[in-house]
């Protein structure tokens, strides 16, 4: 430690060059457990230093960097650049299958696009929750298309490029048609086992199930 103390002592007689002062302020602010005011910084610098000039130089140096020197009230502190805030999120990714409501809605949009919400509901025979649409929008698999030129000018939904990439399609026209689905055995007149429990029980019950409000629909994703 002696040599460093030596520096302090020397500096009583002559202030270090501005570049050195900038380094010092940089180190002080980096290590400090709290934002420091200019006078607190000056107190720690060797005698004769110009804290304000060193701070100004540092602010400039960190401009556009991953961290910035920012003013916090009357004090200064290093902070992550705002556009990089997302890096401070440690994401735990969980893979989950899309709910039946979502995949059906997505399928209808893909086959019938542009499709309005009312059209989706008509085809599915049940109401489409806002949560389902929102999820598909968030996943960037659907987006808003043009408004339909009918009374009420309803919005339409279309699939996105990201949807095509995800499903390995060049265009929505590449989706297999009804004829092909039938040939593939997907349109057999039998429900796939366990796939449609709602349709076998009584209608009264089923109606209840299908008219679940948004909240309940959300629950399906958990």
């Amino acid at each position: 430690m002696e040599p460093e103390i030596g520096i302090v002592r020397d500096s009583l007689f002559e202030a270090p060059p501005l570049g050195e002062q900038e380094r010092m302020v940089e180190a002080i602010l980096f290590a400090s457990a709290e934002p420091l005011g200019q006078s607190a910084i000056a107190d720690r610098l060797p005698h004769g230093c110009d804290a304000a000039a060193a701070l100004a130089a540092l602010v400039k140096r960190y401009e556009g960097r991953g961290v910035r020197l920012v003013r916090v009230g009357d004090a200064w502190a290093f902070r992550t650049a705002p556009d990089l805030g997302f890096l401070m999120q440690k994401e735990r990714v969980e893979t989950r299958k899309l709910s039946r409501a979502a995949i059906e809605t997505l399928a209808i949009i893909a086959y019938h696009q542009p499709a309005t919400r009312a059209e989706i509901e008509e085809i599915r025979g049940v109401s489409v929750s806002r949560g389902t649409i929102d999820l598909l929008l968030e996943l960037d698999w659907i987006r808003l298309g043009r408004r339909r030129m009918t009374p009420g000018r309803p919005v339409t939904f279309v699939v996105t490029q990201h949807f095509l990439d995800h499903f390995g399609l060049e265009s929505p026209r590449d989706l297999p048609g009804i004829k092909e689905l039938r040939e593939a055995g997907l349109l057999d007149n039998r429900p796939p086992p366990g796939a449609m429990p709602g349709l076998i029980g009584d209608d009264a019950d089923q109606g209840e199930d299908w008219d679940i409000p948004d909240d309940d629909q959300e629950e399906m994703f958990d």
Partner: protein
Amino acid sequence: MTSDMIPDSDDFGADNEIEARLKAEALIIDVDGFEGPLDLLLTLSRTQKVDLRKISVLQLAEQYLAFIDKARSLRIELAADYLVMAAWMAFLKSRLLLPPDPADEGPSGEELAAHLAFQLERLEAMRRAAARLMARDRLGRDHFARGIPEDVAATRRIDYTATILDLMQAYARIRTRDDFEPLSLKRDAVFTMEQALERMKGLIGQAIEWGDLAQYLPIGWTSDPRRRRSATAATFAASLELAKLGQVELRQDEAFAPILLRRKGPVHGT
């Protein structure tokens, strides 16, 4: 070891011996400060003022034995390991001095001496290394970590997956749904005999007086003609079943007149 010293006045008396006596005492008292015989040996070896690699192990053995003798003469209690080492140093000394015995298969005095010298040099080297290590720039003293670390927020992101097959199956499911609906519609207006029987068993306990069978139709099954038909048929069939079991009596005054029902005998099961 103990620093409990009982100076022996017989050994030290003359003026010029005071200094020697103090010196000896200092060394003895220091036994407490030594970390075992190897440490003591290392200290003694330094008095030879030579590079440790050129140390005379024979001389060291003599120094050690002299030290132990002095400690004994001062009646200082020495720990067992110091005495074990003393015995071994005496053995080593004899090995180094006597010509090697061809019948003896053990390592030679030179080998033993070389290893002891190695141990001393190694211990010395480790001490110097330890000192250099501790003199390094240290975190929290010379270099510092970020004082305001920014917490990384742990968030959960859900990655939804779906394959083209999922998509196709979903669409196929929707397009074929109509085909299944009649199956369930049929059941919609059917009230079964079992349901009627179950229902009536719970009600006939109160049927002390004659009452119209129609009043036993379930709620919600009387306005829609299809449902009323099914419920009436089921309820009538159930009442016949109950009559057969001897639980109710049935009466109809004339054709198409209301069918009347009342309880008969003790009621079972409720």
